[in-house]
């Protein structure tokens, strides 16, 4: 009876250890083969300077995509980001904050500069040729599509996510559309000090 109990206990302990190891393995980061977000690019900033992925190293970055002829989401996102940067105070200097245009036709460096003058001065604007934009969008897995409108004109469908990258240019997380400010700020603060981002459940998309 006693022996059987011991056997049972040993089995149970063994099973628990195995299960624990399996869970641990599952939690380990996947090996490098998984698709990465971010990578090499060449663009031009709002002052006409050539920018590459190297220009964003040494500081963590928050990068998002849009275009200046966007009436709703882009000014809203830029204002949200502006509010975050104000809330971060002097820590905002420890971040690269970049608005990348998907509209090579209209968004010249001058246009980006003019547009961003209405928002926090930390926000930089990158633009480029159609091919350069295609390349960075592919690296960041950003969806964008030019949609012609009736009677001339066009608009862009585009990803509305803010990508968070560490100081070595590695992807660490996202701030999604209409994510509550407290959650976004917690992520940015963690990003600045190089800690892993606080877990937040995928946002349900309802306005905060």
């Amino acid at each position, binding site marked *: 009876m006693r022996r059987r109990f011991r056997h049972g206990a040993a089995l149970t302990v063994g099973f628990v250890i195995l299960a624990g190891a399996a869970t641990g393995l599952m939690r380990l980061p996947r090996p490098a083969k998984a698709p990465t977000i971010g990578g090499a690019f060449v663009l031009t900033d709002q002052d006409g300077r050539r920018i590459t992925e190297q220009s964003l190293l040494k500081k963590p970055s928050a990068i998002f995509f849009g275009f200046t002829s966007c*009436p709703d*989401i882009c*000014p*809203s996102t830029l204002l949200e980001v502006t509010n975050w940067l104000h809330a971060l105070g002097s820590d905002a200097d420890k971040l690269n904050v970049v608005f990348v245009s998907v509209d090579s036709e209209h968004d010249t460096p001058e246009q980006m500069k003019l547009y961003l003058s*209405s928002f926090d001065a930390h926000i930089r604007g990158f633009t480029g040729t159609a091919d350069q934009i295609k390349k960075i969008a592919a690296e960041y897995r950003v*969806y964008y599509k030019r949609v012609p409108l009736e009677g001339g004109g066009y608009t862009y469908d585009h990803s509305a996510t803010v990508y968070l990258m560490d100081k070595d240019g590695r992807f660490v997380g996202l701030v999604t559309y209409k994510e509550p400010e407290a959650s976004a700020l917690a992520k940015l603060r963690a990003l600045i000090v190089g800690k892993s981002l606080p877990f937040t459940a995928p946002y349900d998309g309802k306005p905060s």
Partner: protein
Amino acid sequence: MFEPLTLARTAHFAPAAMLSGVTFFVLFVAEPVWARAFRGREMAHLVLLARPILLTRLLLGFVVVAGRISPVVAQEIKTGDLQIEHPWSRATPGGAQVAAGYLVITNKGSAPDRLIAGTSPVARKVEVHEMSMKDDVMTMRPVPGGLPIGAEKSGTLAPGGYHIMFEDLKAPLKEATKFVATLEFERAGKVGVPFDVQGVGAQAPMPGGSGHDMSSQ
């Protein structure tokens, strides 16, 4: 979100009240003291001169304060069976050539109506568009055939959804100004609607004031 009666412009209220307070103090406390000190001297006429100026300032201060306290009645436009409330837009960032207009339309009639078109002196093209988010991708499209407003129903055009798209702006929209757009409804016909321009990226209409005020920062 849409309170018809609100203590508006509280940001301006405090300085106005303070100004009145200071003037009150000067007029009724400090002034009699120095008036007594100067009595009979050469400067006395200057003191007498200052009195009406101070009094005017005090009265002006009261008027300003009273104006701020008085409830702001929500902007309402009626045409036929339709009632239009809170038409607002946003100041455009530098160089932007598009703007979105938002409002609430209530159809009090028993027949459905439809917002089909619009014109405005500020833009070369005015359309009803819908913005939507799917898998974190933003899309924006004209609403084919216009926006239906069912009988006894109300339709809200707000950020993140339907908006009136002002394209090809002739001039930037500036905060705390107004512009007019003529909206055309299938049944109710045309109606001029004054849009309040709020701050860049504002998310809701603020009666009598602006939301996130970018320009003052």
